[in-house]
């Protein structure tokens, strides 16, 4: 993972009253206020507001995690994505249970 080209990033999703999910991901799609936004490992540092929608996390093995989120923001730096939302919950998990 410490290669020059990073293929995964750390993702941490937290809701106001409980942590929702954290782990490694190869890409994340977020419902940014200006429209959907995809984030890949080694993205430039960004801080953006998100609105209500579905956040999709693609894990390194191709599994998809979907989360229903409302009203929050994400920040990305040093290959670490933090998603902080008012309310958020797991809606769908398609893939093999680990």
């Amino acid at each position, binding site marked *: 993972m410490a290669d020059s080209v990073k293929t995964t990033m750390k993702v*941490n999703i937290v809701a*106001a009253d409980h*942590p929702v999910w954290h782990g490694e991901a190869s890409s994340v799609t977020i419902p940014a206020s200006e429209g959907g936004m995809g984030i890949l490992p080694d993205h430039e*540092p*960004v801080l953006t507001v998100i609105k209500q929608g579905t956040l999709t996390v693609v894990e390194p093995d191709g599994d998809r995690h979907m989360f229903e989120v409302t009203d929050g923001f994400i920040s990305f730096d040093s290959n670490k994505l933090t998603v902080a939302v008012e309310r958020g919950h797991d809606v769908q998990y398609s893939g093999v249970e680990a």
Partner: protein
Amino acid sequence: MGSQLALKSRIRSTESLEKIFNAQEMIASSHIAKARDVALNAKPYTDAIFDAVQALVAHTHITHPIAVKDESNPRVAVLALTSDRGMAGPYTSSIIRETESLLARLEADGKQPELFVYGRRGSTYYKYRNRDVAATWEGDTDQPGVEIAETISNTLMDAYMKPAEKGGVSELYIVYTEFINMVVQKVRVLRMLPVEIVGNEAKVPDPENEKAAEDISPLYAFEPSLDEVLDAILPKYIQSRIHECLLTAAASETASRQNAMHTATDNARNLIDALTRRLNASRQASITQELTEIIGSADALNTKEE
């Protein structure tokens, strides 16, 4: 005999009180574990917001109304966090005492404080005394959820963002009880608004360190724009700070209730012991008296026959 009956009934009622206190104490101790869990669950969110606000401060000079104080407006808001129920020892009364002294201090500074109260005990205290209270909230003071934090922070943000001529306030203070440990809880006054962001402050005035500071925290791109991000994040920051205060206050309330109930149980037991001793003494006294009477009268009869 009359006093013995009275003592017996006092012992019985103290015994049932003792049971109530003991139950309350156990309820409080089970709630503390829950309060701690809730606080731990909310922590990652608070940390995430705190980091984001730190990042914002590191790169920008905030001129957002939330961070800049309007000195000319004398109106300030004071939020007091009290409990819904009693039996928590000095919890609510020390909050009220601190609030009163804060109000007096603000008034002495020429400010016009407006009072906001959370918790039934606090709101009835002020209602009973016919004091002006801007708003009150009740319910769930021992396990406050996100919803109540949202309601409170929205009301306070509204009051804060309103222009001065429409009754807006220029500062916001919170009086709450900090949870230090199970035995020690401290009443604190926190100035919540305007936001004082600490942390990187030490680095900012030193221009030679600026380069180093930039290296440490990455340069962010703000989407859609810096102002919109600020508009979205600072209210959340306030809300999570308020939620944090509510959670600490709830933990303190529960701890305070547990302590108070523990003391009450001990007192009830001591009282039962003392009363039982008095009951035994009085029973023994009445037996002695009866014996004396019997012996005395028997003696009198014997003397007569002779």
